[in-house]
Structure formats: C-alpha cells, structure tokens
C-alpha cells in the first residue's frame, strides 16, 4: 500500500510526538509511524525530570545550565547546541505546562524543581534545583501529554508499523518503507520530509534500563546506507539500576538525599567526588561503583552490586516523591526502601551518539557539513551532540522537547518550500528481499541465542571499563555473530503478527549498532566522559577533542571506516574552555 504525507515522523516517543506536533503546527500534513502504540514508547519510563533554569526554587540561569551541560559532556558537547538548548528549554517547559502537563508544584503553585546530578549553580559551585518534575514519572507525563495533544491535532498514526528502510536518492530523502505487523504487508510512505525519532539501542547490552524494543533500528538503517553514526563509543551506564534486572532507579533518589554505600556501609562517594559526593554525574558514579565492586566491596551473592540507602529519609518523601521506585523495589526485589537498603548496579542506559544532525535536526552525511535533504532526526537516536561524551540527567527529556520541536518546525518549513521528489520504481524491493531472506532462511541458528551472546559480550568487552584487547576481541565476536545471523531460522510462516520475524530483524539492527560502537570505541585512544579506557586513562584534548564518525564499509562487509567531525567549541554568545572535569 502507498501513502503520501508532507511530513513523516518515525517514532512516537517524546521526540517523535513533539516533532509531529510542530510539523502539524507548521501547516504540513503529518503522519507518525511507530512500531509500538505511541503511549508504549520508552519515554514513559523516564522518571527523574526535565532540567530547565526556571529558578522556581533557587536562583538559576541558562548560562549555568549551558556550562553544566558542556562540562558534563566532558567538553565534547557542541557549544552552539548547548546554548540553544539551555535557552530554549525554559520556554519549552512552560509550553509543556500550557499543554496541561501535571507537574508537581511548589507551595506558591509554580512548577516544582529538585536537584539532579551534575546540575550546579554559578558554574559548578554547588548543586541547584533545576529538574522540573511530576512526581517521579515525568517521562510518563510528557509522553501522555504529547500524545494527547497529537490526538487533539488529529495527527494520523500508523501504529505497529515497523520501518524497514529509508528511501534516499541523490542526497534527498523521499520516504520510508514499513512492515505492517498486523498483516505482514509492506507499505510505502512518500514524503517531502522525514523525521527520525526511533529512540535508543540499549538492548545490545545484557543489563539495561531500556525496553526490549529499543534495538537501534533506524540508526542501523541509516548506517547501512553508508552514512555515518556519530560518537557511538559514548554510551552511558546509569549507576543505579536494580541489581540483576537493570530496571532504572531514578537519579532523583540521589537528588532527594539517597546515599550509596558499599559492603562495609561506607559512603564511598566521599572518596571519588568530595564536593558533590553522591550527586556526581553518572559516568563518575558508575565507575566508582564498579571500582568498589572490583575491589571486593560489593554486596549480594555475586558481590556485584552496592547499596543505596534511603532509610534516613522521611517515609513521605520515599512514598511520595519517589513512589515509582519504591514500588519497583517492592515489586521486583521485595525490598522496602523505607527500611531496607536496596541493591543496585550500573545499567546500560543512554546513547549519547547516533545519527549526526545540525541544530535544526537536519541529518548530516559526513563530518564536513554535507547533509541529506529532507531528512531530520531528533531524540536519543540523534546526535546533535548536546550530550558530548556524557549526558547529564534530565537533559535527555529536554533534548526531546527542544530538538523535537526544532526538527518538526524545520521539516514543515522545508516541506512548504519543495515539491514531492519522485519515488524510485520499486522502493520496497530491498525490504521485501531482507524479510523474505529471513523467512526463507532455514538455518539452525536461534536468534535468541545470538542475541544473548551479543548482549553478554558487549557488556563484558565494551562496558563501563574498556581496553584495547577486549574490544579487539569483541570486533571478532561481532563478525562471527553476523556470520551466524545469516543462518538464523524463522519458523513462523505466518503473515499476521509475526513477532518471530520482527525479533530476527531487530537482531540484525542490533548487530550493526554494536559493530559501529565497538569500532568507534576501539579507535578512540583516550578516556573521556562515559568512554573510559584502562589502557588510555587520560583525556587527550590535543588528539581527541573531535567527534567520531563511523561509516560502514560498503565494500568490505564487517569493516568500519572512521572519520571525524570538529567540536563546536563556541556558542553564539558564550564559550567555555575545556578544563579538567572534577566535581
């Protein structure tokens, strides 16, 4: 089946919904294609909040926010993006409120704000209340509110459609191809502009806070076209995931005063970040935890976790502001934060890297300013490089809103100016071929086994601490897994709701993301932000203050070509010199 819209949005998480809304406001006809019902998107899992310098609780300024973002990103953040972001987000948060988002309130009735890791006043002096929150389900509220507004605007949704291909010809995006889960049919969507907002790919790791459906589909599709993925080596491990499960415990627990303790009951963060202790940014806390565990001070049967201690907080805070996480700990661990210490462990959480874009979301085709006309990206899957080498908590929801909005506006504007470009004769050819190959493959390999091996090996070899030999081994492992993937079997011949086929397809996407990540990480011989190499322990601004661009070598399967892109070291009005990152 064939459809035609001015603007197509792929993905209905925070970024996709915001983009769809703004594209519609820009006067375009808009459709949103999503492989899940929109309200199932993983944005709903975000708990902590959305950072904006409203100053409702304490004095705050966007410049401070800009600085924190750049410092948090270990100076790999593009400063123009950070400036736009820190300014725009204030307005964007008010706008969410005007859309009805039920924020928690201060006694005066303003949007409530709380402290969050890495957010400081006066360029790093002390923690500041910057995270606007709706209890501890801010992401849920954002997702619901934005979906509601799209219902109001009458956005057309194609639910449970899996995008399988992008149609890019002569440097211009002409549409997408999608597989309809319910019927097994292939649909083609012709568009003037396409916005990609399909979320992250945390599922390549064994312990992750990400949904089972976050498999990096669109990144991989982009990458398979020989287009670059930026900064893939930077992957954030959130320090506080429920032990073994990876389910996220919001950073808000540290914001509210939770304390990390090792097996001796010691508040070990005092040693690693003397000034802000437990409120240090995620990469630092994660590494501190792993160090404690490695040095034998872990808790639990495998001594691979540490405790978070909330027992000194009043019950109302734990059950009120931290209700969600209290519920999770009670449900899954049978531990009650009011009186128990809860076992936590770092969990794969957030991709700083992804499809490179400029500050309007336009997708870049190389590190030298080339772009794909009519193709935009926003959200976790994009890399405007706001987050640099490490994202600050609450900055991702902000990213969705600010850059989702910009991408939506830019796409609608572009769509107003141009005519539809022709679709190729049979745009669905490749998708059909891929799917039919999967269906027909009568191999003996089980997709689930390959996936499990991928997840375990990525966790071990490209996890929180990295080194050359391990990653070199991982490159080989991925090649091997890709070989085996070719012989994966799909036993369900059905057309309707063939989830086996979908999972097999998603595994293919995951393998690509892992490949790009491992190659990028192996290539970067320094430690910066979330990328920590045991064999290159220092940050190296002389050689490495630049973005990685990973390209699939279309001529040599399994090989990755690495290019670079400059870091924007100046904003429009402010610039922050790279300094050592201490807290």
């Amino acid at each position, binding site marked *: 089946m064939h459809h035609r819209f001015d603007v197509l949005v792929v993905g209905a998480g925070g970024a996709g919904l915001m983009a769809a809304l703004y594209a519609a406001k820009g006067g375009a006809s808009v459709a949103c294609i999503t492989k899940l019902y929109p309200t199932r998107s993983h944005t709903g899992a975000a708990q902590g909040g959305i950072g904006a310098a409203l100053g409702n609780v304490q004095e705050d300024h966007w410049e401070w926010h800009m600085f924190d973002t750049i410092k948090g990103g270990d100076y790999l953040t593009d400063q123009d993006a950070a400036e736009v972001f820190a300014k725009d987000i204030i307005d964007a948060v008010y706008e969410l409120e005007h859309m009805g988002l039920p924020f928690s309130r201060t006694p005066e009735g303003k949007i409530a704000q709380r402290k969050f890791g890495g957010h400081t006043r006066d360029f790093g002096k002390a923690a500041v209340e910057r995270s606007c929150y709706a209890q501890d389900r801010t992401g849920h509220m954002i997702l619901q509110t934005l979906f509601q507004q799209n219902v109001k605007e009458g956005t057309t949704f194609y639910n449970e459609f899996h995008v399988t291909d992008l149609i890019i010809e002569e440097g211009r995006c002409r549409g997408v191809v999608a597989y309809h889960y319910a019927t097994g049919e292939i649909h083609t969507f012709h568009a003037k502009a396409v916005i990609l907002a399909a979320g992250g790919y945390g599922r390549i790791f064994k312990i992750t806070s990400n949904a089972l459906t976050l498999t990096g589909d669109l990144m991989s599709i982009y990458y398979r076209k020989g287009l670059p993925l930026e900064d893939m080596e930077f992957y954030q491990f959130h320090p506080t995931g429920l032990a073994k499960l990876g389910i996220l415990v919001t950073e808000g627990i540290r914001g509210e005063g939770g304390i990390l303790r090792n097996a001796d009951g010691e508040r070990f963060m005092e040693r690693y970040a003397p000034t802000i202790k437990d409120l240090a940014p995620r990469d630092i806390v994660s590494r501190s935890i792993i160090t404690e565990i490695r040095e034998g001070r872990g808790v639990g049967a495998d001594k691979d976790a540490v405790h978070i201690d909330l027992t000194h907080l009043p019950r109302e805070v734990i059950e009120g502001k931290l209700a969600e996480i209290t519920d999770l700990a009670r*449900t899954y661990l049978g531990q009650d934060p009011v009186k128990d210490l809860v076992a936590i462990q770092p969990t794969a959480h957030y991709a700083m890297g992804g499809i490179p874009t400029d500050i309007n979301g336009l997708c870049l085709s190389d590190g030298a300013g080339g772009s794909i006309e009519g193709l935009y990206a926003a959200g976790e899957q994009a890399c405007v490089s706001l987050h640099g080498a490490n994202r600050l908590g609450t900055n991702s929801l902000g990213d969705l809103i600010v850059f989702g909005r910009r991408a939506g506006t830019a796409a609608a504007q572009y769509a107003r100016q141009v005519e539809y470009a022709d679709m190729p004769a049979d745009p669905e050819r490749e998708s059909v071929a891929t799917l039919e190959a999967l269906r027909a493959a009568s191999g003996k390999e089980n997709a689930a086994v390959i996936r499990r091996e991928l997840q375990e090996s990525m966790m071990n070899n490209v996890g929180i601490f990295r080194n050359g030999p391990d990653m070199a081994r991982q490159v080989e492992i991925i090649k091997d897994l890709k070989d085996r993937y070719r012989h994966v079997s799909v036993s369900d011949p059905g057309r309707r709701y063939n989830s086996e086929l979908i999972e097999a397809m998603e595994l293919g996407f995951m393998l690509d993301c892992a490949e790009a990540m491992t190659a990028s990480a192996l290539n970067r011989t320094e430690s910066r932000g979330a990328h920590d190499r045991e064999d290159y322990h220092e940050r190296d601004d002389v050689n490495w203050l630049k973005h990685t661009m990973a390209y699939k070598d279309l001529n040599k399967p399994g090989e990755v070509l690495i290019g670079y892109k400059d870091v924007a070291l100046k904003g429009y009005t402010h610039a922050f010199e790279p300094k050592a990152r201490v807290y």
Partner: protein
Amino acid sequence: MAEQHIPLDTHTTPPMRVNVKILRFNPETDKKPHWETYPVEAQASDRVLDVLNYVKWYVEPTLTFRRSCGHGICGSDAMMIAGRNRLACKVLLRDVVKDGGTLTVEPIRGLKVEKDLLVDMDPFFDSYRAIMPYFINESPPPAGERIQSPAQADRMQHSSNCILCACCTTSCPIFWVNGSYLGPAAIVQAHRFIFDSRDEATNQRLNIMNQNTGVWRCRTAYNCTEACPRDIPITTIIEEVKRAVMYQQS
C-alpha cells in the same frame, strides 16, 4: 549501621518447575483457541514475562504477545494470568504459582484476539479518544506557568498515572458482554481532566460521562481497581465522576 535491617539476598531465590498453560490461537491456522502447556524451569523471582520470553525464545518461537519496557511502565503486556488481569512483567512467579504447579495465561477479555495473547486494541483506544483526552484551555497562556496549588495538583495524582494498559477495562464484567461501555480506563482519563483546575472543558466531559455509555454503566464490581497495575483507585475515581455529574446537573 548495626541496627539497620540488611535485606536477604533476594536474587538467589529457589529454582522452581512450573507448567505454563497458555491459551493459544492463530486465526490463520486454528478454528478455535486451544490450550498448550510448556514445562519450564525458572526462579521464584522471575517475572511471568521472563517465562513467556523463555518459551518464545527457546521452545515455541511462534508464541505471540506484546511487550516492551519489561517493568510495568508501558502497558503492553496486559494478560489474564492465573485468572486475573495483570501485566506479565509486573508479577513474579512466586506470587502466582507454586513449585510444580500450573500457571494459566490467557488473553484479556472483551477485545478480539488477533493471535495468542495479542488482542485488537483499537476499540479500547477509540473509547479513550471519545472522552476528549487532551487539555483544553483556550485563554492565552501567561508568560510563565499557570499557577496551580499542590493540593489542586494532587487531585490528578492518581488518574494521571494511567498507562492505558487496559487491564481494568478488560476485567470489567460490564465491558465483557457489551463493548459499548466506555470502560474504566476512559473514565480515569476523563477524571484526570475533569479535576484539573486549569482545564476549561469540564462540562463537555461530564456530559460525555453522563451518557448511556458513560459512568452510569459502572455497577461497582471493583475488578478494575483490583486489576490496575498502577494501583489507581479506579472505583473511587468513577464514583467521584458520578457525583461530579450529579452535582453539575443539579
């Protein structure tokens, strides 16, 4: 720290054997639904979703169900587990079955089964759309936020927590027999706006609630409240809406 209660290590829960009995149906090949049983070795602290994934990944790849987040936040995996509606990712094995026992898993009721545990959600979302599920305030917004007291914000605390999983609506005996009832989920959504001090469409929403398909169909069976994975006091909310309609009209 000596007086502090250090928890047991909950990750080393005892292994258990269970028979997972699933109501399967593939309209492409089957005439009617049938039960299939899969013996599984698992841990007491495993989620039911883990068990279903195990069956799907290693035993019966054609088994079909929805799932995404894996921790009770996205609302994909509502199903009838051991006779009650729940999210598969939010129940632990030890809470629904004993070692050596049988665990039944069926699709939720009242919506058309498309394949195995996966049902057609469109009627459910149609009801959702029917209550005008969006904030309406046409007066120009202030430069900053609209002011709302913490107490006013609290009025929406429960109803805004809904993840649209349909556990409630498909547990309601009134909904099973006649899909025309909007159902508890839609009412919870309406409540979220009706009791939002900033919203201006209260009257229209109450009118929708006042119709034959609205709140009056609720016969206070409480299945919805028992089923809600977000612990929303749904029946209380429905009763509040009933009263609001009554006071509005009088």
